[in-house]
Structures are given as C-alpha cells and as structure tokens.
C-alpha cells in the first residue's frame, strides 16, 4: 500500500537498530499508524510493552471467541486480591500489533518488566497506599500521561501537557488528538513516530523521568529484552511501546548497567489470564480507568473507513431514533455542518468529540443534556463487552472461593441441606460471612431460613444447594473483583448506586453489615443519605428508619464502626420531623392508621437513637417531642394520630397529667365529630384487638379515662357512650372483664379524682425504694447495664420506648401489693 514492494530495503527513520514505534496507549490514530508502519516495514518479530508472563497467552488473541475489549490480568497466586490489569481495546496499538503478528505468523513478545516484580512492588507500597486491592497496580497506564496520576504521585510531570502547552493548547488530550489521532497516515508511515520520538526525547532531557522513577528499571528490562531479540532476529524487529519510553530504548547503555538496575527486585509468584473488559471500564469515570474518557468515539474513529463525522452523526441519529426521538436526515446534515463550522471556528483540522457533541446538543437534542447523556453513555463510552475464550485460565475469584471453601470446610454440594450456624464460633461466623457475601454477589448458594427453636441473634440457619449454573455466576462475578471480599464490596457499591428505592438501600446497608463489608459501607451510606434527602414521602423515610436503627444495633454487636450510620439515621429522623406534620394532614382512615404506625416506629427509634445521637444533631428527643406537641394540637391531623401523640407525650412525662385530661375532654366534647373522637381514644389507649392490655396494666391511664368519664355530665353521657363502645368493644372479652374488675375495685381511679396532681394514679406519692431495688438485679441482667446506669433506669422513667414491657412490669409489681 505504501509503495514498499518486494524485499524490504527498509528506510530507517532514525539510526540503526530496531524500529521503535512510540504510541499513545488506546489511541486510534496511533493504532492506525502502527498498522501502517508494520505493513511497510514487515519486521521479523514484534516486541510489545506488556508483562512477559503473558507470552503464552498471545495465541489466544487469535481465538474466534476472543473479542476486545479484554485485559491481561496478573495476580499473585497465593493472594488473588493483589492484581494488575493491562486493558486492550480493539483500537489499542498493542492489540493491533498482536493481531498483525498473529496474522503474519510472526513471533510477538511482551518485553515490560515481569508482573512478578510489579505485583511485588505494589505489595511494598501497600502501607503507604491503602488503596482498594482491586485497584490496578503500576502497569495499567504508568507512563500514560493523560491525567491518570495515582494519588500521592503528584510530582509526576505530564509530558503531553508540556507539549500541548508549548503548542498553545489548554487541553493536552485535544492537542494529541489534533496532532496525532486525527491525522491521516498518508505519506511516510514512519514520519509521525520519528517526530514524536524527537519530541519525547526533548521532554525527557528536560524532565528526566518526570517522577516515574520505576520507569528506569522497566526501561532497563525492556532494553535487555530488545537486545536479546536482536540477537535472535537481527535488527529487523519492531517495538511497540509508550511514546514516553522511546528515547530510553534508543539510548545506548551497557548490559551490565541494565542488569545492575534489575538486581534484587522483589518477587511474588504471579499468574496471568485474559479477562473480559468493557468500554465503561476503559473510560476514566470508573475505577479501573485506562485514561480515556471516550472509548466508543475512539472505536468509531478506528473502525470508520472514511467520513468519520458523517458516520458518527448517523450513528447518533440512529440511537436517538431508537429512543423515540424525532431525528431526521435533515438534522444529521445540519449537525455535520455545524460540527465542521465549529471546528473551523476553533481552528481544528477536523471536528473532534467536543465539536460533534456541541453540534449534536444544539441540533438533535434541542439543547438538552438529557438525550446527550444517553449519547455519551451508549456511544461515546459505549456498552461494548469483551469476550474471552473458554480456554483462558480460570479467574482468580474462583480460586479465592475454592480456597475459602476449603478453609471453612464448606463443600459445594448439589444436594439441598440445612446448616445451623452459631455465630459465636469463629468458623461458623466465617461461613456466615461467606454466604452473605455470595448473596450480595447474586451467587445464591445459601438461602437464609427461619431458625428453628432459638431466636437468638447469634444463630443463623441457611439452606444450602450448589447448582451447576452457580459456577457460571462465579465466573461472571469475576468482573467485580479478584477475591470474594473485594468483589462483594464492589458489587454492593454498584448496587447501592443503581438502587431504585430507599428501602433497597437500607436493605443493602443491612447486608453490608451482615457480610462485614466496611469498605462498601461509606458508599452505601452516602447513597442512603442522598436518597433520603430526595424522598418526599415521609412514609418511606419512616419505614427506612427502623431498619437503619436495627442495623445500628447489629453494628454494635459486630463491633463495626457505625458512626456514619448513626449520622445518617439522625439525619433521616430530622427529615421525618420536618415532614411529618404536613404529611399528617387530610388523611383517610386507612392512611391515618398507617401513619400512626409510622409515628410509633419513629418514636421507638428516636428513643434508641437518642443514646447514639451525635453532637451535630443535638437533642433529637426534645425535637421529636415538639413535633408530637404540634401533632397533638393540630385539628387537621386525624384523631388517631393526635391521640397517639398525646399518649406518647404523656408516657415520656412531657405532658402534664391534667393537660392530657383537658385534651381528652376537648376531643370527647360534643363539638367533635364522633368518628374523630373515637379514633382519638383509639390512638390514645391503643385500639384494636391487642390494645386493651395497656389499659389493664397502666392504672394511671385507666385513671385518666375513668376520671374523664365520671366527669361527663349525665345528658352528654349518652352521646359519648357510642364512641366508647366503638373502641372498647374491639377488645378481647378477657381484657374487657379485667378492665371492668379494675374499675370496680378502682383504687387508682378514686385516689386520682380525690387528689389530682398530688401523684399519678396507680402510684404512691413517694418512691418505695426498698421494693424497687429488689427488681434491680433482674433488670440489670436483662438490659445488660452497668451499675450506675441501672440505678437511674430503675426509677421507672419509661423512656426506653413507648411500649417497653420491662418498665411497665416494674409498675405492675409495685402496684400489686397495694
């Protein structure tokens, strides 16, 4: 094609020695240039920057089932969490080189420092850089100067930025695209490499290694490899490497000097395999970024035969049409015109991604960013998923799983069986964690079942069954990480971000605690806080709150840090406080009943939260009380909720006794709608089948109702009677009888009418400390309190929660002997 015919009297662009093709990783222009240069030079062998352990895997690249994007994965054999990736896309120069070599049956070799050493390097770094275990180590893009600077290595110089600045560009990516990627390869196929090599040479003279100190070692290794290949094949070889390395490879160094640099490098036993990759992961937005934010666009540039802009616009139009947006050919024409004029106006040789995006936005998307996001997601980044042939070695996740299974003595069996776990035992706790983690990964080997007998929190029952397709799931889950822990963490994070409802996220938070994924928790919490902030339905918030507070207590049991959790729960509670009063207005009976349950649930959790309340959220309890006051006093709030609010306030001692009596009289006076009044009573004493029990046990309450009832004038009594019947007839017969007996005996009722204010009915005016002390040991045992707190708690404050049976029990004990 390029006029080099027959035996290649190859013109050498610079000096003797191997043909050095400096590229930008994942650059479509580079890839095309490399292909042209290889076609022209026809070398006897190609050397590629990459881990030499993968040499054996190269033939797999020719497999029919192999589809880029894929990545070479290196991981330490005895520590699958330690891994590194070398992603390759269809438009990566390295991939093009491999394919070219395979097509022409020429040996291809990787010449970078072996993964054995690079993995060991990342091990050394670990204390300083406690990054995620799945984070790509050094080799992903170490010399790629496009902004993927790892944290803590800010000293590195970005050589492209320096060049771009010299050329007057503010964005190095754009400069590279204008100068290299968008240029055709017409003319001399070697020229671009020569020019680039010179530029890089100048840069390296100025900046040295630019902070990439390890490059020296890697380059020493590469030089040795190149030399070895020269011995074997002569000078007729091509080297494809990052442009940054070209000057170093051309440098003349002695073998001894290079060997010296390589001496004493740390080592770990490493294993390599191909894993499928996705365009999304190539892009910068996701964690394993290869440093390019538009793999789809690059793929298009590489794949398009001609007229890339026209083809791209047609693709965009096709996508938008699929999504039912009206995009005509006229739109496409105008978009192309606009993109080209924009490029001219900005002085670029060809419309780049920026111009095409601007044009698509203005012409096809009517200025809106919403369809544009779709274009970005589906086309600019793209949904391409790579495939790897079955012959590729196993993924590390499988090995990690097998290792854990061996360690925990938990064999995968096809037969269904039940497994009882006692979480106090170390091995069982480990099994529980594994099963919970696998569930998060959708590998449903075990299914939690209801425990028989014991209901203690330390006991778990699982139903186990290993289906053959679970192996496939494990392989699929391999994309999430290399160990069960890291994969589950990554999956939980991704799930949290994608979760639809607030309840899903709280469920996930609980799951994270059960599966002990502390690293995933912050992300889940952040999503939870965001969702809670945007959810306008108080019902949803109130529903989410108890689960969250429950998780808070799990966290306590398992000694994980739940500070963040408490913070989120407190924030959630505050939102409920603000939203509750307006949400309680104008509800029908059913909705009111549901809202009453929410009020109860929130009341219970506020009690628990109050103890864990963080300094930033102040006194939640006091604020909750003021909310209850608002609820109890607002006429638009349904009776059942108002009654409930009064009752909760009364229980907490926030409402004076006679004030409660006044409110009750107010509600039950003739001016109130009968149904509303009945609902109020129901809310106040607790309606429904189980409601009467409290009235039986709480004489104070009974006294209040009794006092009001006996105070009702005779003529009004007949009006009130149906309301009371409505509530009391719903009680069970036994409860009704007991109530009647209590009223007949009526010590509480009489004392209260006789001396309102001197004491609460059912209680003596003074504490009988002697008798109260008698129950303390039992209380202490039940609540697990230490000495000091127990003394206070025993005073019968009744604040643990609205219906805490224990304190009520004390009341009862104290009253029985009277």
């Amino acid at each position, binding site marked *: 094609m390029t006029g080099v015919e027959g035996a290649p009297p190859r013109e050498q662009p610079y000096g003797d020695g191997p043909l050095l093709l400096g590229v930008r990783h994942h650059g479509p222009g580079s890839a095309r240039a490399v292909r042209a240069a290889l076609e022209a030079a026809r070398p006897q062998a190609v050397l590629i920057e990459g881990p030499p352990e993968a040499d054996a895997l190269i033939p797999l690249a020719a497999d029919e089932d192999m589809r880029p994007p894929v990545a070479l994965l290196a991981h330490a054999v005895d520590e699958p969490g330690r891994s590194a990736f070398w992603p390759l896309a269809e438009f990566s120069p390295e991939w093009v080189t491999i394919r070219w070599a395979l097509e022409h049956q020429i040996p291809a070799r990787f010449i970078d420092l072996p993964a054995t050493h690079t993995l060991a390097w990342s091990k050394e770094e670990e204390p300083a850089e406690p990054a995620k275990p799945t984070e790509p180590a050094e080799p992903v893009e170490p010399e790629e100067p496009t902004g993927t600077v790892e944290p803590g290595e800010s000293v590195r110089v970005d050589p492209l930025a320096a060049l771009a600045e010299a050329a007057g560009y503010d964005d190095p990516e754009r400069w590279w695209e204008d100068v290299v990627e968008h240029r055709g390869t017409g003319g001399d196929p070697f020229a671009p490499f020569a020019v680039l090599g010179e530029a890089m040479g100048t840069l390296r003279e100025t900046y040295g290694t630019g902070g990439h100190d390890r490059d020296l070692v890697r380059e020493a290794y590469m030089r040795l490899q190149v030399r070895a290949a020269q011995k074997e094949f002569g000078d007729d070889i091509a080297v494809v490497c990052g442009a940054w390395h070209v000057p170093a490879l051309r440098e003349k160094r002695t073998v001894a000097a290079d060997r010296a640099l390589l001496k004493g490098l740390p080592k770990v036993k490493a294993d390599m395999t191909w894993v499928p990759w996705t365009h999304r992961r190539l892009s910068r937005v996701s964690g394993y970024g290869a440093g390019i934010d538009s793999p789809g666009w690059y793929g298009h540039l590489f794949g398009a035969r001609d007229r890339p802009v026209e083809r791209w616009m047609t693709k965009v139009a096709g996508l938008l049409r699929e999504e039912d947006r009206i995009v005509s050919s006229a739109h496409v024409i105008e978009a192309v015109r606009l993109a080209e004029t924009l490029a001219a106006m900005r002085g670029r040789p060809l419309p780049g991604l920026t111009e095409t995006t601007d044009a698509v936005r*203005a012409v096809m998307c009517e200025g809106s960013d919403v369809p544009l996001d779709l274009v970005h997601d589906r086309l600019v980044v793209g949904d391409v998923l790579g495939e790897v042939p079955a012959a590729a070695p196993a993924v590390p996740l499988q090995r990690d799983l097998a290792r854990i299974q061996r360690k925990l003595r938990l064999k995968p069996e096809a037969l269904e069986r039940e497994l009882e776990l006692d979480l106090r035992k170390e091995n069982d706790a480990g099994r529980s964690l594994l099963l919970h983690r696998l569930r998060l990964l959708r590998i449903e080997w075990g299914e939690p079942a209801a425990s028989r007998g014991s209901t203690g929190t330390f006991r778990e029952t699982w139903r186990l069954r290993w289906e053959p397709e679970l192996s496939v799931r494990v392989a699929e889950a391999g994309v999430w990480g290399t160990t069960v822990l890291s994969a589950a963490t990554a999956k939980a994070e991704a799930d949290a971000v994608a979760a639809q409802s607030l309840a899903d996220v709280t469920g996930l938070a609980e799951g994270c605690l059960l599966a002990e994924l502390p690293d995933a928790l912050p992300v889940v919490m952040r999503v939870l806080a965001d969702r809670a902030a945007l959810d306008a339905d108080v019902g949803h918030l109130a529903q989410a709150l108890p689960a969250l507070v429950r998780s808070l207590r799990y966290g306590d049991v398992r000694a994980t840090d739940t500070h963040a959790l408490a913070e989120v729960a407190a924030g959630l509670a505050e939102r409920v406080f603000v939203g509750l009063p307006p949400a309680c207005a104008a509800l029908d009976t059913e909705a009111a009943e549901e809202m009453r349950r929410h009020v109860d649930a929130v009341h219970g959790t506020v009690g628990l939260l109050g103890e864990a309340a963080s300094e930033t959220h102040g006194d939640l309890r006091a604020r909750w009380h003021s909310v209850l006051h608002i609820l109890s006093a607002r006429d638009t709030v349904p009776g059942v909720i108002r009654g409930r609010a009064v009752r909760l306030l009364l229980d907490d001692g926030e409402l004076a006794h006679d004030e409660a009596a006044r409110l009750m009289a107010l509600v039950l006076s003739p001016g109130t709608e009968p149904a509303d009044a009945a609902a109020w009573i129901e809310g106040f004493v607790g309606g429904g089948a189980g409601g009467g029990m409290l009235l039986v046990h709480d004489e104070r309450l009974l006294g209040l109702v009794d006092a009001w009832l006996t105070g009702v004038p005779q003529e009004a009594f007949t009006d009130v009677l149906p309301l009371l019947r409505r509530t009391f007839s719903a009680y069970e017969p036994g409860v009704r009888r007991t109530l009647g007996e209590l009223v007949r005996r009526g010590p509480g009722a009489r004392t209260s009418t006789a001396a309102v204010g001197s004491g609460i009915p059912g209680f003596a005016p003074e504490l009988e400390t002697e008798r109260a002390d008698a129950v303390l040991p039992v209380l202490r045992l039940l609540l697990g309190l230490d000495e000091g707190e127990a003394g206070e708690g025993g005073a019968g404050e009744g604040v643990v929660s609205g219906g805490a049976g224990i304190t009520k029990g004390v009341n009862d004990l104290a009253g029985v002997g009277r």
Partner: protein
Amino acid sequence: MPVSVDPTSVDERRNPSAPANAHATPGARTSGHTPAEQTGDEVMRPHAEDAFAAELAALAEQDDRPRPTRWKLSPWAVATYLLGGTLPDGTVITPKYVGPRRIVEVAVTTLATDRALLLLGVPGTAKTWVSEHLAAAVSGDSTLLVQGTAGTPEEAIRYGWNYAQLLAHGPSRDALVPSPVMRAMAEGMTARVEELTRIPADVQDTLITILSEKTLPIPELGQEVQAVRGFNLIATANDRDRGVNDLSSALRRRFNTVVLPLPESADAEVDIVSRRVDQLGRSLDLPSAPDGIDEIRRVVTVFRELRDGLTTDGRTKLKSPSGTLSTAEAISVVTNGLALAAHFGDGVLRASDVAAGILGAVVRDPTADRVIWQEYLEAVVRERDGWTDFYRACREVSA
C-alpha cells in the same frame, strides 16, 4: 442572490418619516437610528449597538478574518465581542456574557451556517441580553424585534396593511406594512423574536416557511420577498414554561438550540450579582451598603444549593423547590435587602434584611416548598459555622 423585489422599495418603509408607516403605527418604535437626543442619558437603556458602539467599531477595524455576506464582523470577532478580550491595539472589549465559551461559539457558528438560533433557558439567564448583543454584533442593528405575547398576530411576523392606503389605492407595495422579519429578510439582517413559546401556535407556523424556504410570499400582490444572504433569526424562549405554546417539531427542527445555563461557580454568580446590584442600586438612587458582600455570598449560596439540590461541599443532597431561583432573582433579593437595610435598618446589609426576600423566592408552593425550605434550614443552615444569625432570621420569618 436574486431578489424578486427591489430591496430599496422595502427600505423606504424603514424610514420612520414615510407617511404610510407613520400612519400605521403612530408613535411606534423609534429605533437606534433615531435622533441623538433619544440615545443620550434620557433613554433608560440604550441599544447594545449604541452603548458599545466604540467596541464594535474597534473590532470591525481590526478584524481581518473572513466575514460572511452582510456581516459587520467575522464570527471570531463576534465571539470576542460577547466574551470579551483585548484587541491587538490594546482596546479592551468588555465581556457581555459571563459563561461557557462553548455556548457563544455554538451560537455564533449557528448564525454563520445560516441556521436559525433558539436560545433557551430559565428566566434570568440573559437570553434576551445575548440575542440583542448577537444581533448588534452581526448586523449592527438589534432593533428588528418581534415581542412575542399570547396576542402576537400573524402580521407581526409577516406583514400588515395600511388600511387608509389600501382603501384609497387598492393593494400595492405602498399599502404594505412590513414586519421586522420581512425587513430583515429583504436587507439580510438579523431578526429577533422574543418569547417564541408565548406566541400562539398558528402564528408560530408562519415562521416555518420563512426559515426553510427563506421566502415570504405576498399572495395579495402575487409577489414574494426572498431573503438575501445575511438574513437570520434569533428566537428566545423560556424552557420553564414549556407547553404554553410548545414549538411544533417542524419548527423546532429549523432551529439550532442553545440552552443558556445558570452560572457555573458560586464565585462567578456572586460576581454577577454584586455587579448588577451595584449598577441597579446606582440607577435607582439607593444608598450603597458597605460590607454586603458576605450577605450576597450567602444569598447566592442558598440559591445555588437549593437549585442544584446539592450542598456546596457536595456531601448532602437536597430537594429543589418549585421556583427557578435564577441569578436574576438573587439580584432582586439583594436589591430588596439593600433597600430594607438603607431605609429601615442600620444601613448595613444583614441576614434579617434578606431573609424575607429569600423566603419569598424559595417558597412558591405554600406546602411543598415550605417543607423543603424548613428541611434545608434544619439540615444544612443550622449546622453551618457562622450562619447562626442567618438561621435565626430565617426561622423568624418562616415561623
């Protein structure tokens, strides 16, 4: 470019002294080409091409890039005029639009490719401002304006008749009263249509032929006006009111759409607000309040956070109220607060002076927005260091 009608015959109508026109619209529009006493200090707000005549002249003089037919400046110079810059001879061009360069580039390029331009945005994002300056820079005349209302008739976009002439002499070109759009077509100028989505749909439709065929038939006379090179149209529309008279897809297709965003950073917005407040305060003879910048910053922060649904530290999400909370509203809150501080306070802009204004701007829907506002107060404002006075003031007016 062949023109079926002699443009000069239409041009006569442009002369305000022409009797036909004067009768049809007595005392109507007096453009930027009117006698000098109108453009001086008497005019509340001079046209862009008059106010920035010196800058435009300097740009035209030093502009050596190719200009599209009948453009007063090259596209690059138009972009510089809007975005500001310094010319080779040292003339400083003030920025007319503070915002992403991309937007101005796309807008200018659209006009250069003779596509019509539609500027969309919530109220208060300088749509009209940008369209006026674009027209002034491209055609040197920003007065070919159709003000869109629910009552805009077809005549405002096509042409009307001088009925005295029509009755006396029958239909002729002399009896025709051209619309700004028609004049722009005949002269190759930039026409502007304000509030396009407020114009009734059947009237909007008349634009379709004008934009696609670039011709305006006059069936009564059996004639037509063909647009000459340089004609273009800039329309503005408010995207909050979408659906009032939503554009048909046929019409939409003829526009390139540019959405003018709200200011990108808090600093930029504070800058815009304080600059405008300063200008407004001067023109309304309000006493200037010193030390108000902190309060302005707070107002802008509150507006931005509620608008974006995210606190500035990016850690807490928020619900957004139904109001637009544009920069223009922030400006009015601060101006209002200044007036309060000057007349009823101690002359220094304080939290209590802006609190009521903020409440009014945020709470548009009495139930939903109030909850959002209180949630914001409790969850964000209360915990913020140094915002206690602001929190108290807001609580006071919200209670």
